[in-house]
């Protein structure tokens, strides 16, 4: 009995329960929801936002916040595709390593400012996002690289599918799940991962216990940038074009998904499983408005309400007596 009530008090269980209710409601309104095509499309929509959410989750567990990852993702994506076209390179592994490294370097720059000058992560990442986007659009270019100029190897990779019962499931979903498992192992099974939780809970205590806080900050923001860079190129190969103005406004959605998944903005709290559920919830709501015959212009309002309600619930959970 106690184990059941304990389970229900975990936010993952609550999110899962709400998720199931929402899916049943949508299914009742429009049974087409349960068709394999629709479900597979839904899963596919999780991939890029999901990887970005894992990046934000790491930052949030450390007690910070990151609004620069969309800029890093778009820079990694656009620079990599341009470099591939310039060199006429056809391959998959090397470009993805390149995009990841670009993201990593940007993330390390965030860490440098945050650690060396003890600056507030929100301000630093607002600034670095503006710097990276400004440089990309101002110096590199503003033109969209369409399907006819996209490297065929990337397109082939991004559109690889498996046929299940006549419907096509994007294989990218397994990349997402693979990264999620690795992140879960890293956060819960390694000393470096535990250090992030300790740092987010109380940076000063973590330092006194003997964790290297400098290494932790660099690890957190470096990892976040690397994941964002990877997700950026994956996005381009899945939609077959590279748009240097892409990902505008993603920071809101992704942060919402992570908070929805039970992570605390004050740090020290959050899980990979919860984040996956949060991302699924968000994409479910966004993608199902049409299927529920609600006009698409309501999307912003609905997502905003979901953020406010979810954060209100977590605030209620984390409430303290006085301050």
């Amino acid at each position, binding site marked *: 009995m106690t184990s059941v009530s304990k389970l229900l008090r975990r936010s993952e269980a609550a999110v899962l329960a709400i998720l199931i209710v929402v899916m049943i409601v949508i299914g009742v309104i429009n049974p087409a929801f349960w068709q394999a095509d629709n479900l597979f499309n839904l899963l596919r929509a999780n991939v890029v936002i999901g990887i970005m959410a894992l990046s934000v989750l790491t930052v949030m567990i450390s007690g910070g916040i990151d609004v620069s990852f969309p800029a890093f993702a778009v820079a990694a994506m656009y620079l990599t595709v341009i470099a591939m076209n310039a060199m006429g390179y056809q391959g998959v592994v090397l470009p993805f390593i390149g995009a990841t490294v670009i993201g990593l370097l940007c993330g390390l720059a965030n860490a440098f400012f945050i650690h060396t000058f003890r600056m507030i992560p*929100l301000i630093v990442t*607002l600034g670095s996002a503006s710097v990276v986007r400004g440089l990309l659009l101002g110096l590199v270019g503003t033109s969209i690289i369409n399907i006819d100029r996209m490297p065929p190897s990337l397109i082939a990779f991004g559109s690889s599918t498996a046929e299940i019962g006549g419907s096509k499931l994007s294989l990218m979903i397994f990349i997402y799940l693979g990264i999620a498992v690795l992140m879960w192992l890293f956060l819960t099974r390694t000393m470096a991962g535990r250090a992030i939780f300790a740092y987010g809970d109380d940076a000063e205590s973590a330092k006194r216990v003997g964790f290297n806080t400098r290494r932790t900050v660099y690890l957190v923001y470096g990892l976040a940038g690397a994941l964002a860079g990877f997700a950026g190129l994956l996005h381009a190969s899945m939609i077959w074009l590279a748009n240097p103005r892409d990902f505008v406004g993603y920071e809101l959605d992704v942060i919402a998904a992570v908070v929805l998944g039970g992570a605390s903005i004050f740090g020290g709290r959050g899980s990979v499983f919860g984040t996956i559920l949060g991302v699924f919830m968000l994409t479910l709501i966004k993608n199902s408005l049409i299927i529920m015959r609600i006009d698409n*212009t309501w999307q912003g309002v609905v997502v905003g309400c979901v*953020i406010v309600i979810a954060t209100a619930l977590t605030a209620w959970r984390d409430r303290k007596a006085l301050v």
Partner: protein
Amino acid sequence: MKARSMNKLTDLRRFVNRDNNIVQLLIITAVIFVLMSALEPNKFLRYYNFESISFIFPELGIVSIAMMLAMLTGGIDLSVIGIANLAGILAGVFFTRLYPAAPEAGAAAELMRVVAGVVLALGVGLLAGTLNGLLIAKVRITPILATLGTGQIFTGLCMVLTGGPAIVGFPAWWGFIGNGKILGIAVPLVLFLVVVVVIAAMLTKTPFGLNLFLIGTNPRAAVFAGLRTERMVLYSYMLSGTLAALAGIVLSGRTNAAKSDYGTSYLLQAVLISVLGGTNPSGGKGTVLGVSIAVIALMLLASGFQMMRFSNHLIDFIWGGFLLLVMVINVLRNRGK
């Protein structure tokens, strides 16, 4: 005799220390001014340039003051642009659909229509700010997340109301708020000066202002000292929302249009200007004067770069780089003390 001159010296030093930030800002502004005048003397030093700046900067200045108000208690208001656009769009809906101009309406009726629109827009801002304040003070959602969410809702409502394209067809008097002149001075500038004086007086001369600084300096101590922190934080976001709506009125008046994605780059700039103006994002520190000088400094910078045909993207880069640079300078300076 000697003691007295020593006293005078320490007095002076204390004054310079207290207003160190203002002095630093004035120096930055002067440097930018001289630099731009030297680089583009023919275009920059014209009366027309300064006149056009006096029309454009007030909306950003008002938004920045709204941002500073939220930062005083250690919060942030990421919904200011959403509120500004919502106020402009609702006024537009009011003028075009709910209460269109009567064919033979006199000047008085037209003026009444615009006054009603202004009241409606400011009321929406007050309401939106109240929602933010309640979520932050009562429900205790972190300001970043609360205003991120409500900002999304406000922008979403703009989308629902307009369906995407801009709303046009504001009355002539509405345009006067954004484009008119009183005694040769731009109306937006007059409004900005009024806001500056009122908010500065509110922050320095009233218990409300003192409360905000105390809450920002140490929220725990403020609670134990018996301050009504919840109510004060609520008021500060109500004020911030109303100011954002005022900025929305000026913006829609100047461009004679309202759209759901107007002024999105203002959000980062408002944060930058408040921080540059000496506001501490963790709370407890900030002056209206500092923010006002900062907005003028950055407007001079932007107008100069535009004359040198820098692309808008590179100006974004410069804004971001400037934000980081200023923060670093502030940190290094405080470390020295």
